[in-house]
């Protein structure tokens, strides 16, 4: 066997402790807009989590005597029509918004990605059925789809999460299917086929894991979208119900007083804008960091 031994030179291809994972993180942190996005998200997360420590006000407790106060030292963002501190309501409301965004996208990922992967990898009639259903869903605007679902499920936090999540499911199906179609052609998938690995194990081991990167990026970008959908439902009074201080709901409540006290709707609107911006910037940065083809 002596002549079969790999020569030493052939052995030393890469040093141990390969830094490729760290490189991704470094690329992400060198990206200014990504850092800004992440900072915004960290700020809002902190405000939502630490709200009881940061503000003395109860977001739901009415104080009619101090209604419609303009921003001041006591109420930095003013008070609404029922005298509730808007800053406190935004901080507590962030809990709803962040939770809805993350849970809705998780739902969309958990439902859409497996369907898309199965559809793309197996092809045939399975693909046909899943794609036609996705086509039908895609023919609705995601918000309209969510609206329909709320009509069926009724209002409330849970319905909003499901509605916003299902609203973006077809996009996840399409993306995962495209990934599966591409990865399916990889030589290592054909190699696994050639040594008789089962289709289920090829799907799970090779197709799913190699499809993951763009899906993670897409999911991050979609959190912003689902937050907008949820806020839109809240604005229409079909989302999380008052007195909960979900930002869209706050926006809807402030709408009536927009000429008299614009700040009651402006600040929740600004919060929605910032968080959506944060998720989009972070998502873009994540894509740049994870996609080697975009790396300079």
């Amino acid at each position, binding site marked *: *066997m002596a*002549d*079969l*031994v*790999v020569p030493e030179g*052939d*052995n030393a*291809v*890469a040093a141990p402790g*390969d830094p490729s994972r760290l490189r991704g993180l470094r690329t992400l942190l060198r990206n200014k807009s990504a850092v800004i996005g992440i900072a915004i998200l960290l700020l809002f997360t902190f405000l939502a989590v630490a709200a009881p420590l940061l503000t003395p006000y109860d977001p739901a407790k009415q104080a009619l005597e101090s209604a419609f106060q303009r921003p001041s030292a006591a109420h930095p963002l003013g008070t609404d029509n029922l005298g509730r501190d808007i800053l406190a309501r935004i901080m507590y409301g962030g809990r709803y918004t962040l939770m809805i965004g993350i849970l809705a996208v998780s739902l969309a990922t958990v439902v859409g990605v497996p369907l898309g992967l199965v559809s793309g990898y197996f*092809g045939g009639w399975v693909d046909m059925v899943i794609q036609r259903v996705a086509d039908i869903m895609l023919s609705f605007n995601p918000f309209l789809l969510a609206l329909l679902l709320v009509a069926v499920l009724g209002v409330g936090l849970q319905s909003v999460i499901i509605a916003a999540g299902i609203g973006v499911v077809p996009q996840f199906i399409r993306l995962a299917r495209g990934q599966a179609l591409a990865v399916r052609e*990889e*030589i*290592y998938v*054909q*190699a*696994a*086929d*050639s*040594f*008789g*690995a*089962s289709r289920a*194990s090829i799907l799970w*081991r*090779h197709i799913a*894991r*190699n499809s993951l990167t763009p899906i993670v990026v897409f999911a991050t970008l979609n959190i912003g979208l689902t937050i907008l959908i949820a806020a839109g439902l809240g604005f229409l009074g079909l989302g999380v119900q008052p007195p909960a201080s979900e930002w869209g709901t706050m926006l809807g409540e402030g709408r009536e007083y927009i000429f008299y006290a614009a700040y009651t709707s402006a600040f929740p609107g600004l919060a929605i804008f910032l968080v959506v911006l944060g998720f989009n910037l972070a998502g873009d940065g994540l894509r740049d960091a994870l996609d080697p083809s975009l790396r300079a």
Partner: protein
Amino acid sequence: MTEPVLSIRDLSVSFRTHTGVVRAVDKVSFDVYPGETLGVVGESGSGKSVTMLSLLGLIPPTARFDISGQALFKGRDLLQLPPKELREIRGRDIALVPQDPMTCLDPLFTVGNQVGEAVRAHQRMPKRALRRRVVELLGLVGFPQPERQYDRYPHQYSGGMRQRAMIAMGIANDPSLIIADEPTTALDVTIQAQIMEVLKAAQREAHASLVLITHDLGLIAEMADRVVVMYAGHVVEAGRVETIFQEPRHPYTLGLMGSLPQAGGNDRWLRPIPGTPPDPMRPPPGCPFHPRCLLARGRGICRTALPALEQIGMADHLSACHFRDEVAQETPTLLSQAAEIT
């Protein structure tokens, strides 16, 4: 003679494309015997890979194709088996060593894990036993410290190392037949010899037959016991390797020999075969080789009748040429004519 491991009879594969039907493999028949190494030679597009891939059901499902014929493996016709049973045979009884090792390993898993996947595809065993088996396999294909190689990722491997890993996956379940599809084409010349050694050792270890698909006659001369020469989807000559090299009885085989560089030979020029292989969409009538054949000399039968693959004198030497007997006496003339054309 003993029973063949694999017996292919009248195998035809044709692809339906937008522009027409391509007959990639046309009534191919040959046998593979236990323990032997069979070389399948031919230029690109001669149907040598498609022949083997079609047996294993590995032609991409997106292609529209028709297969006919028979391929008996251990008494079962591979072409009639449902995909599920074929999947069980692949890797367990018949292993495939691929052409391009660079992209054959999934970048997300360690090499040991992937070799383990090949074992687990057909055998159930506890984790520790599996790891031991994988380390043993990595040792068999010549890694000096198999234990260390186990936890490395494919990008830390060179091409030669990856091909070794692929061979380890190939022999993971002691197959009785290994099909190596141009296993060294993508590798450096210096690595080629090592890989062939490993392949030979692996074949011995598994007591398997080896089908070596290649266009490299040098490799065939070194490795093979018997040779099948393919041209435009047909088997044009078959026989023992010494016979084929010393007394080729088909003008195409002769042409292949002539186009080989010879170390220490007194000929200065290589003698390529004139012309190009036929368009598979529109194969020439009669013998597929006649437009390039120096022996045809415009004779009618070459243009009208497909020559049958028939035995010549000695045992198991077959040639598909109407004038197979002329090849021997005309060998020097044919070679010099080829030289003039170039």
